[in-house]
């Protein structure tokens, strides 16, 4: 039996507040379909990372709180669950900025990634990660702090694969990387999705790269989803082209917000 549209993750009407006062997500709803790559795009400060941290539970470590709405994973509410527990449920966030353990070597970093898995799995998982990222194998004994930015990103993703998550949350894997490396890493993300059937929620500012590998995309501005659709439709959408893909006239990227005549389509999903 084939369930094409089963939602692994459902975020409904989510409101997140930092330090009791700063309202960052203002009723955000989105879904990540099983086995698909879902892109979450938007400008700096829109609330993309906050969305991922709400799912993984890590906002708790930053004095963030979910004040409204729900997050469901496999139809179970998880917005009250502790981060350690969430990892064990099969959700793994690769944080923005890679966050490798700089004074640990590559292999030790990967061991941390597999912290929640039985030790007996380690050799096989390691081999699998090295198959995706042969460069990590070459540097397995090197301290992560001495890797290049691209290699650190590979390590960050490799660490996630060690945990064998069902849902992978990727926060701006392209950040600060040269175009060629971005392509290399995105190709691997796509392979992971295809070969492992891993569901991926991909946060990006690089909209073109993200939409080129994702199935569905959401655009987040100022704490709200302002548009969503299949990735192909978004790539062909004139507004997306103008504001996110830099194909517009005038050169400079502008935000939707700056455009008075923009027909803002608010979507309340779920």
């Amino acid at each position, binding site marked *: 039996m084939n369930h094409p549209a089963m939602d692994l993750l459902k975020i409904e009407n989510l409101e997140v507040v930092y330090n009791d006062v700063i309202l960052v997500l203002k009723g955000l709803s989105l879904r990540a379909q099983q086995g698909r790559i879902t892109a979450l795009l938007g400008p700096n400060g829109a609330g993309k990372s906050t969305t991922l941290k709400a799912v993984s539970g890590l906002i708790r470590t*930053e004095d963030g709180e979910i004040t409204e709405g729900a997050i469901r994973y496999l139809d179970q509410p998880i917005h009250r669950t502790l981060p*350690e527990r969430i990892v064990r449920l099969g959700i793994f966030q690769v*944080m923005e900025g890679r*966050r490798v*353990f700089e*004074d640990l070597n590559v292999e*030790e970093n990967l061991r*941390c990634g597999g912290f929640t898995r039985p030790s007996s799995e380690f050799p096989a998982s390691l081999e699998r990660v090295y198959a995706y990222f042969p460069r990590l194998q070459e540097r397995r004994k090197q301290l992560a702090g001495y890797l290049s930015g691209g290699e650190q990103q590979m390590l960050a993703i490799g660490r996630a694969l060690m945990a064998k998550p069902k849902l992978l949350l990727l926060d701006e894997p392209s950040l600060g990387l040269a175009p060629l490396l971005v392509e290399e890493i995105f190709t691997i993300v796509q392979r992971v999705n295809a070969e492992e059937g891993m569901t991926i929620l991909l946060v990006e500012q690089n909209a073109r790269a993200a939409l080129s590998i994702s199935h569905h995309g959401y655009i987040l501005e100022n704490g709200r989803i302002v548009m969503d659709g299949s990735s192909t439709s978004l790539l062909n959408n004139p507004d997306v082209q103008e504001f996110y893909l830099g194909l517009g006239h005038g050169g400079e990227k502008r935000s939707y917000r700056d455009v008075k005549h923009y027909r803002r389509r608010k979507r309340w999903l779920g």
Partner: protein
Amino acid sequence: MEYYLQLIVNGLVVGSIYSLVALGFVIIYKATKVVNFAQGEMVMVGAYICFALTVQMGLPFLVSFLMTLIFSVVLGLCIERVILRPLIGEPIISVIMVTVGLSTVLKSLVQLFWGTQIRVFPPVLPSEPIWVAGVPIAPIYIAAFVLSGLLFAVFSIFFKYSRTGIAMRATAMDQQAAQSMGIGVKNIFALSWCIAAVVSSIGGIILGNINGINAQLGHLGLKVFPAVILGGLDSLLGAALGGLIIGVLENVADGFMQQVFSLPGFKEVAAYVVLVIILMIRPYGLFGTREIERV
């Protein structure tokens, strides 16, 4: 010559105890970035518990030794759970001040229960010296040195190869990233306090067997600062060598001052003279990490 050899041997033994206490200190610092000013008092408490079990309750030494270790684990857990966990998220300086308070509380409790006079352990090992390279050494000294070395080996292997040990190092570097991979940061903190309490207690018990104990034993904690600053606050190997170096240095310098200038009491300051010199020339210690330059 034999005079100095004897001083070096004494220094190595006392130094190995400094190393143990420094090990506890470094583990807490590495995992939680807390400078634990109560480390010396944890040594003292361990020594007194073992004393109470052996002398006052009359249990065999080995039994009270093991029970003291269990007590230390509980003490470590209590300190972490009751005193430090509520402070998570507070500035690190508050936590450090709390450890200063803790050191006073522990010292007062010891004085309350056992008074201030010197207490001695019944001899555990024979006092007949063993001759090593022409120098007579008390068996307890050899036992102390070997035990410290063994503990260091065990913890080095633990941090290098075990998953929990690696997770502890990871947590020390980036708590949030560690949490993102399912590492229970609170458990790691608790574990580091337990280990610190256990190694301190062992140090205290050894010292008690050598010198006897009194309520000033906690001052040993202050000696550990020169050791860890010499070795680097976050390096296990540094703690080991720093402790040994300080132990030898203070004994030899003291002996030299007494012999040549008839100046007693240099022992008490030698370690701090070293401390000042290190801070001037190599503030991150012999083995401590300078920040890695990002490529």
